[in-house]
């Protein structure tokens, strides 16, 4: 049956527009804490089957292959009546990249959360966003207010281009999270307004 646009809708007002930001990083780096510190709802969890990449294949017929799922936490922030920002916390390992293509499509950009005691955990996320041309910032999560290396050292260690903003953040702190998100959106704006 075809939906007729002219059908009188009892609901008034337009359906809000969604925008999204991806929060990536290694295991237990604080992605869900970061999302939860600013989300207006308790972060929710959705599950995607690891076989999602085999689209077009009849999954129901592949018994046993859907036994593994990957959990993704997300939160939301209403920005006025007609705009909702979703924050998606996503696993950083290579084997989850099949999800990222879907996740980053149409995204404002990404925040790569870094734990300086486990720098290598974010290599894969940095590589991904760089090669996909997604605007991203690198935020070093200061556990208990401390970081083990300076931002310059982290930039060198991760070979992050000078054009990519880096900052120290605190995933537990709403103001720090907000400021990190603002940096990302500003960075995306700057990139979007630069001549191609």
């Amino acid at each position, binding site marked *: 049956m075809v939906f007729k646009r002219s059908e009188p809708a009892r609901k008034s007002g337009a359906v809000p527009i969604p925008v999204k930001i991806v929060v990536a990083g290694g295991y237990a780096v604080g992605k869900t804490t970061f999302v939860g510190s600013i989300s207006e709802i308790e972060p929710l969890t959705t599950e995607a089957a690891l076989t999602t990449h085999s689209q077009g294949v009849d999954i129901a017929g592949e018994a046993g292959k859907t036994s593994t799922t990957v959990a993704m936490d997300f939160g939301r922030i209403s920005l006025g009546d007609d705009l909702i920002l979703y924050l998606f916390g996503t696993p950083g390992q290579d084997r989850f990249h099949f999800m990222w293509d879907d996740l980053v499509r*149409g995204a404002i950009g990404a925040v790569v959360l870094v734990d300086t005691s486990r720098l290598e955990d974010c290599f894969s996320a940095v590589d991904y966003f760089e090669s996909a041309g997604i605007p991203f910032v690198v935020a070093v999560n200061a556990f208990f207010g401390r970081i083990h290396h300076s931002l310059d050292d982290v930039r060198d260690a991760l070979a992050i281009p000078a054009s990519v903003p880096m900052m120290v953040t605190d995933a537990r702190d709403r103001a720090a999270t907000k400021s990190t998100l603002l940096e990302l959106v500003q960075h995306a704006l700057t990139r979007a307004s630069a001549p191609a």
Partner: protein
Amino acid sequence: MNETPREDRLRVRPYALTGGRVRSSTELALETIVRVTSRGETNSHELATERRQICELCSDPTSIVEVSAHLRLPLGVARVLVGDMVTDGFLDCNATPAADQDSRPDLRLLERVLDGLQAL
């Protein structure tokens, strides 16, 4: 994050709900926000349980990922069901189909996000 064994939350194999399909005729981004239409409100009692629950949940604007989380449906399943329900006029959405979303949000939208975040 973590990789967990699937819990048996559904009484049927999840993709049985979609007739085994992993794609809907209307391909929507996972953050697409939908809301029940008057047609959906009037006719939801005729629908299968999951679709009826989606109509009820979406009396307020709700994204596909939220449908998935609240109804404990795998994301792929929620996406197919919601896509079908948009096609059938039970739900209304305000998003371009996923296939058209390869580009980033435009300047105007980014500025609104920036202003909105600053005002928090």
